[in-house]
Structures are given as C-alpha cells and as structure tokens.
C-alpha cells in the first residue's frame, strides 16, 4: 500500500532501540518485508537512544526520529527510563513511542502507559505475526496517523 509520505517523497525516520542482535536483525528484516519507505536508525542501548533523539555529540547531524520503537530490557538505561525522559522533555514528548517488548506483565504495561507510551506492543513469536504487526504499524502510524510537527527550537 503506497503511503502519502512515499508519494511526496518523504521517508519517515524510525528509531529502533534494541540490544539483541538477532532481535534487531529480525525486526529489520520484518520492516524490510513490510515494504515501507522509511529511514531506520538503530540504538543498541538506552543511553545511545537518548543521545540520538537529543542529537548529542556524534549524533548532531542525524535526523530527528518520527517514530520510536522501544524495547524495555535495555543495557545501561532501561527502556522505561528512556520513555520517561522522552515524555518529560518538551522538545521530545510529541514523538510517538511504541513499546515493543516480549513482556505481557501487567506491571510493565501499566507502567509504560503511566509514562505516556503511545502504545504497548508485545512482540509476536511467529514471524508471520510479526510481519502482520509491521504492516499494521506501517499502515497506521505512517499512513493514517498525522505525525506531529517538530517543535520550534526554543531560546
């Protein structure tokens, strides 16, 4: 399904935060198979993710992500902390954050929504299901949803 963004030539930027290489690769493959026009940024831990969304240091030149796919169990900085920092930062809180975790635990789900996660997705076990989910993310978040404009830089 062609999207508005691809029609206008804009490739939305997705930040995928995932520490496990195999999980990362699988997610990349699934996103690739979903055939969506996007630019993928990858962070391997919570601290790196924060530096990337804040464009700090070596990441000063990268694009600001339009959508964040965030795993919870991350080294150095837990996904919940990354979520809380993004959602309490006026410059960043508009960016939709989709939690993509293996957890179904009530405490995780509730905690993430309390911290203003935009949705909580449990990673499907079967690849086919994962592919379906990737297609849904593509259609919903990158086609139907009006993504927020980037906030005007302050000061």
């Amino acid at each position, binding site marked *: 399904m062609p999207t508005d963004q691809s029609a206008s030539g804009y490739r939305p930027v997705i930040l995928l935060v995932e520490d*496990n290489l*195999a*999980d990362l690769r*699988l997610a990349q*493959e699934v996103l690739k198979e979903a055939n969506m026009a996007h630019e993928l940024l990858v962070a391997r831990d919570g601290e790196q993710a924060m530096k990337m969304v804040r464009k700090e240091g070596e990441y000063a030149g990268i694009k600001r992500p339009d959508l964040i796919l965030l*795993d*919870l*169990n991350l080294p150095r900085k837990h*996904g919940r902390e990354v979520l809380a920092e993004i959602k309490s930062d006026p410059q960043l809180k508009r960016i939709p954050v989709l939690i993509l*975790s*293996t*957890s179904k*635990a*009530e*405490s*995780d789900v509730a*905690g993430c929504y309390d911290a203003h996660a935009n949705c909580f997705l449990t*990673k499907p*076990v*079967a*690849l*086919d299901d*994962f592919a379906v989910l990737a297609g849904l993310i593509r259609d919903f978040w990158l086609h139907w949803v009006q993504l927020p404009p980037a906030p005007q830089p302050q000061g």
Partner: protein
Amino acid sequence: MAAPRAPGVTASVEGSDGSLLPHALSFAGQGDLLWLHVAADALTALAYFMIPMTLVYFLRRRQGTLSFGWAISLFAAFILLCGTSYVLGIITLWSPIYWAQGWLKLLTALVSIATAAAILPLVPRLLAMRSPEELAAANQQLAQANARLEETNHQLQLEMAGREVAERELRRSLADLNRAVAELEQFAYIASHDLQAPLRNIAGFVQLLERRYRERLEGDGLEFLDFIGQGVRQMKALIEDLLALSRVGRGAESRLEPRPLAATLEEALKPLSGQIASSGAEIVHGELPVVLAEHRLLGQLFQNLIGNALKFQGQGARPRIEIRCSAEGERWHVVIADNGIGIPPAQLEAVFAIFRRLHPQDEYEGSGIGLAICRKIAVHHGGELFATSDGEGRGSQFHLLLPQQPRLRESRPGAPDPGVGA
C-alpha cells in the same frame, strides 16, 4: 502437785503424833547398817530427782513438738514423788514423821495410778509410732521417691525443651520449603520467559530461511528445516505451558467470581473449535450451576481436559465428551468423561505429574504439563482433581471436586508477575 488433804484426816494424824519412835533406834548398835540405808536411799533419791529434771529440760527444749507432753509431766511428777519418799525414808531414821511419810506415800500412789492410767491408753498409739529405724527407712524411701520425681521432672523439662526445638525446626523447615517452592515458581516463570526470547529468534530465522531459501533446498535440507520447525513448535508449547503452570495462583490475577459454569465451558471450547470440527466430536453437558471460582483458570482446566479428550482418541474414532456437575455436600463434583483411549489403572495418578507422558511425542503431541496445570488449578481452589478409567480403550473420566465456597491458596501476594521485559 500436792493432793488436797481431807480436814478430818489431818486432824486425827496430828492428834496422835509424838508417841512414835524413829527408825534409827531399830539399828541401834549397828552403825554400818544405818549408813547403808542412808547411802542407798540418798543415791536413789538423787537419781529420782535427776530424772524429772532431765525430763523437764527435755520438755522445754521440745516445747510444742511433743505429742505426749502431759503424760511425760505426770511421769516426772511420779518419779519426783518417789524420790521425795526416799528422802523422807532417810529423815524417818532419826525423826519419826511417819504421818507425813504416809501422806506422801499416798500422794505418790495416787500420782502413780494416775500416771499408769494415763499411760495405758497411750500404748496403742506408742505402738503405732514408728521406731527411729522405721522412720529413717521411710525417710529414705521418701527421699528416693523425691529423687525419682525430680529426675522425671528433669526429663520432662528436657523433653519439653526438645519438643520446642523440634517445633522451631519444623517451623523453620516449613518456611524454607515455602520459600523454596516460591523461588522455584519464580525460577520457572523467569526461566520460561527468558527461554522465549532465543526461541522467538530461532523461529523467526527458520521462517525467514523457509520463505526465502526453500526453493534452493532439497531432500535432507528440507527435512532438517521441518524438524527445526517442529522442535520450535514443541518448545514453544512447552514454555507456554510452563509459564501457565507457574502463573496459576499468582497473587495479582487471583479473583473469585460467581459465573455460570456453562459460560466458562463455552469459552474454553472456542480455541478447540478446529479440533472439534475436524474430529466430528460430540460434546454434551447436563445442567451446569453458577460456580464461585477463578473462571479464567477454570476455563484453562476445561480447555486442557477437553483438549486431551479430543487428542487421546483411537484412529478415526469420533470423540464423545460429556460434562456434568452435581452438588456433593459442600463441594461441586464436575465430571469430564470421554470415550477415548483410556488410562491404565497404574497410571491414573502418574498422568498428573509434570512432564509425564504416556505416549511418544509423534503419536500424541503435547508438553506433558497440561494435567499438572489442571491439578494445580484444582488445588489452588482448595479442591481435588483425579482420574478414573475402565481401562485402556474404554474412555476416562476426570473428576474435579471444587469447594462451593473456595478459599484460594494464596500464593505470595508479595510476589506478583516479575516485570521481565526483553
């Protein structure tokens, strides 16, 4: 202790005094004989005076503790009087006071008779009194009995202390056991949860391989790929069942509610609809009551048991499953009966053990955990689950005894689902 004299008698004695002669005259010319009498009488008198004095001293020292004090006093008076009569005997050698001596003798006689009269009734009591030897023996026996008592007492105290120690140890072991069970369940949960992550990857990459490279594989390669896929499916079922087992009774999700059993059954059948349709199974149930239970778990129990009933069937057989429920005392008796392959009598209990399988995996698929989950659900409700069967090939019946007012076996409200994210 002078006896009163009758006035008439006194007058007559005094009236005839003076005409009498002293004894000494009888010994005239025999001085030795006279002094023999004097010496003997004096010594006897001395002894007679000393005895009552000793007795009086004795009485004073043992004041109040002696049973026969008055008898002893009387006896002392009697001896004192005897002594006095010997003194008078000496006096009458020279001075003829025979009247006084006579009255004294009379007094002595009276006191003697009184003493004898007083002592006679004491004889049986004196006889009943223990001799010092007997007393000593009795004392010794008492002391021994006392020692035995003390010994028994000591042993009792030791035994009590031992029991207290044993009780403390029992309590400690029980706490240890509970902790170990809790830890094991926590371990099972975390382990099975963490096992899912690598499995998800294996499954994903196998599927990617199949999707992209299947055409380039042939013969063995395809077969190996199928085996990997099969292994992944089995492991997935195993992990999911393990997770389900460790989740039974986890505090956060425990909720008792009254709900029609028929509704729970209907919901449990939904995921089985494919199997039911393909096998042409007939599932019937009688009237089912409203039951107070954790219906999510009860549904899982139904699903496992009915799933088993559908699965364990002979080749080409048409499954027939009947569910009925009756009230038995304060419990519900739910029976799930099938016409399947049955269970050998020796295995009726073993089938509930975790990982216990009676058939090879390629004959009847399964993790070997399903019935363990069912039993845990029953026990969690304070109920029982057991199986009966008329033997192989003759179907089996699973009996759930469920308290009508269940009291959930609370499993550590302090340990909710560990929030493991990956």
